[in-house]
């Protein structure tokens, strides 16, 4: 398995002491959910940080309008509706599709952005029977050709429709985080998929929501950039959560499609939270763990080398990879 990594190398360490940093927060709506932009900055930069957080939120909304499947006029849905075998795609959509390809490759096919038909069937409450789901890989093959800059084309089999809901939010969070590189630290929370950059000496705490409706959190992940900490000085992180308890459309219908059956995954994992090197990677791994179920999922996450993972099972147990404990409050 090729490890999923952050989109860019870590920025060079800065030497801003903790005492001078303030956290400024901007909350908005995007991608059909919450969007939180948090900036760690020297105390005198509060106005600039607030302004930049708003600008980044606007950029995320613009990107999400390109990638949404909920608007028939979005570039993604125009691609899905295009009858041609080969279609030119604009840079943002091309980059997101490229990430979808990487995520599929790195999760052994468990993350599959071409399962729109199966997902729509699940959302209707009547998932496709397993026998009718696509069984041959040739049916879903697609190819992205990047020629000259801004001249990418995609070639796919007839009937292939893309759904970036499962891979887009973490990717957008990472992309937005880089827009805030001028600040010592920042967090982009794209509806629960979180990209984090920690300033030396600073701390970010990420709560893990308990989906059972209690006010308590399942856990709190503490991220620092200390060289002797559990992250060994790493500054860029991703935390993402995936699960089956929010998007439910019937007793057996939820939104996480198992590409091995074409149906909602039959799993004992209600929710998986993964700590990885980027939000995009964390999202892909969390989704894979839910699809695989607890036993195979924990094994998969262990081999993938994620920094930490917490799985809530349907019997109420919350289990973690052993190395996760070093990050928990």
């Amino acid at each position, binding site marked *: 398995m090729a490890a999923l990594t952050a989109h860019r190398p870590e920025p060079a360490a800065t030497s801003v002491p903790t005492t001078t940093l303030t956290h400024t927060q901007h909350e908005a709506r995007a991608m059909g959910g919450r969007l*939180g932009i948090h900036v760690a900055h020297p105390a005198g930069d509060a106005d600039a940080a607030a302004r930049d957080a708003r600008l980044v939120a606007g950029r995320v909304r613009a990107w999400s309008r390109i990638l949404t499947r909920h608007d028939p006029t979005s570039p993604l849905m125009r691609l899905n509706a295009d009858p041609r075998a080969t279609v030119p795609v604009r840079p943002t959509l091309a980059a997101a599709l490229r990430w979808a390809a990487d995520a599929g*490759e790195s999760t052994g096919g468990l993350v599959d952005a071409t399962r729109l038909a199966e997902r729509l069937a699940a959302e209707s409450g009547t998932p496709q029977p397993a026998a009718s789901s696509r069984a041959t890989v040739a049916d879903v*093959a697609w190819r992205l050709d990047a020629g000259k800059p801004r001249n990418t084309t995609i070639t796919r089999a007839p009937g292939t429709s893309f759904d970036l809901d499962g891979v887009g939010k973490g990717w957008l969070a990472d992309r937005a985080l880089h827009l805030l590189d001028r600040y010592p630290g920042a967090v982009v929370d794209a509806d629960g998929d979180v990209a984090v950059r920690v300033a030396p000496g600073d701390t970010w705490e990420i*709560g893990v929501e308990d989906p059972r409706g209690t006010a308590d959190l399942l856990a709190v992940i503490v991220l620092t950039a200390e060289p002797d900490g559990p992250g060994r000085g790493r500054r860029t992180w991703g935390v993402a959560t995936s699960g089956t308890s929010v998007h439910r459309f019937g007793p057996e219908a939820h939104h996480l499609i198992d590409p091995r059956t074409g149906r909602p995954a039959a799993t004992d994992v209600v929710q998986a939270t993964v700590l990885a090197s980027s939000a995009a990677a964390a999202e892909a791994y969390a989704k894979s763990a839910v699809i695989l179920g607890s036993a195979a999922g924990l094994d998969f996450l262990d081999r993938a080398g994620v920094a930490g993972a*917490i799985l809530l099972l349907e019997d109420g147990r919350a289990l973690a990879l052993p190395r996760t404990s070093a990050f928990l*409050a």
Partner: protein
Amino acid sequence: MVRTASPAAASGNRAIPSPRRRPDPRPMRLAFAASGAAALSALLALIGSAALPATAAVPTATPAPAAGGANDVAQVRHIVRYVTLAPGQLPPTGATRTPSTVVAAPVATPKPRPRPAVVTSQSGRP
């Protein structure tokens, strides 16, 4: 005044011998350039393979797409490589069984503390 092309000719001394024909340097230059490019390519490939993490244990059937260079092609074929066996099931022919070695730890309830400003959750949470 008429200037001659060569001071020697102008002085009326013996004729200067025609310069020796030197070999055309272009083929060698091309050869050096080609071998240099090949060496650089091999070096970059070596560095790239060394940069892969040690956890890259599962072979991949398709080449990993490059990161956005010119003329690169991302070929995507969805091949699911993970099959979870239910009790009593047998693995597909040729499959490698990877028994779980992970001993998961129960998650302790976090100590009471102020709710963090950032909370990860399933998307679409009301």
